[in-house]
């Protein structure tokens, strides 16, 4: 089983992607399966770290929280842009010490931070676990550290570590 399907989750997602892009027919299921099994076996050459999902039940909850937060910061950034220079605003870097070490977890955190308008992932040092983000509307540094740590990092640690 392990030999034939080294990455079962990847294979399954590739089949779903194939079916979504084509059509939900038996023919495409078969063709998609052939492509997915082939592609996921090619992946073994790259030896990606295999993420362990400990508590996948938390994933839908995390998605909902992130989508809402992104919507809220969309509105905040629209306000900043439309106000122009009429309001005093300080942009700056925030350093956040992360405890999350799982590479997939960090990748997901990077996607969250990047797709949230108003925050941008700048640099991560894997030796010290220090993350530097840039914040457009920086009021209180500590607030951002706590937001990232409590809201996202804690959940990601539960899911991946």
């Amino acid at each position, binding site marked *: 089983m392990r030999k034939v399907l080294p990455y079962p989750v990847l294979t399954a997602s590739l089949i779903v*992607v194939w079916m979504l892009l084509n059509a939900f027919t038996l023919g495409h299921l078969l063709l998609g399966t052939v492509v997915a099994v082939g592609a996921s076996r090619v992946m073994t050459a790259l030896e990606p770290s295999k993420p362990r999902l400990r508590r996948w039940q938390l994933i839908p909850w995390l998605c909902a929280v992130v989508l809402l937060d992104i919507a809220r910061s969309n509105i905040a950034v*629209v306000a900043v842009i439309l106000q122009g220079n009429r309001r005093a605003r300080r942009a700056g870097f925030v350093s956040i010490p992360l405890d999350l070490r799982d590479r997939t977890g960090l990748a997901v955190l*990077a996607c969250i931070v*990047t*797709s949230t308008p108003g925050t*941008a992932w700048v640099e991560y040092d894997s030796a010290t676990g*220090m993350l530097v983000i840039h914040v457009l509307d920086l009021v209180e540094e500590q607030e951002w550290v706590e937001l990232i740590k409590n809201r996202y990092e804690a959940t990601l640690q539960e899911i991946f570590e």
Partner: protein
Amino acid sequence: MTHVENLPGWAALLTALLVFAGASLTLIGAVGTLRFRTFFERVHAPTLGTSWGTGAIVLASMLMFSVLGSRLVLHEILIGIFVTITTPVTLMLLARAALYRESSEGGETEVPADRRTD
């Protein structure tokens, strides 16, 4: 063209609102890119387009073609997923290059404390 006239009123209204919201967000993001003064501020503006800007248009497309085709059309979700997982790659490359430039040439942006010496 597709048979837009067959679209029921509620779906047409919702689609229009979503397309309008998505397009407005993307436009405001573009305006912001022009308005902001430093690189690191500019980086934030286009994310309006890559988050709910894309999201709202994708939702509108899913809604309209699901109602018209009377089956669930979901493949637009893939656009959202791929936009979300590819933006950090370019952003990190640009941000690190900019940070390196600022800390070595002394630009106008305040760089983090640990980068100031190198």
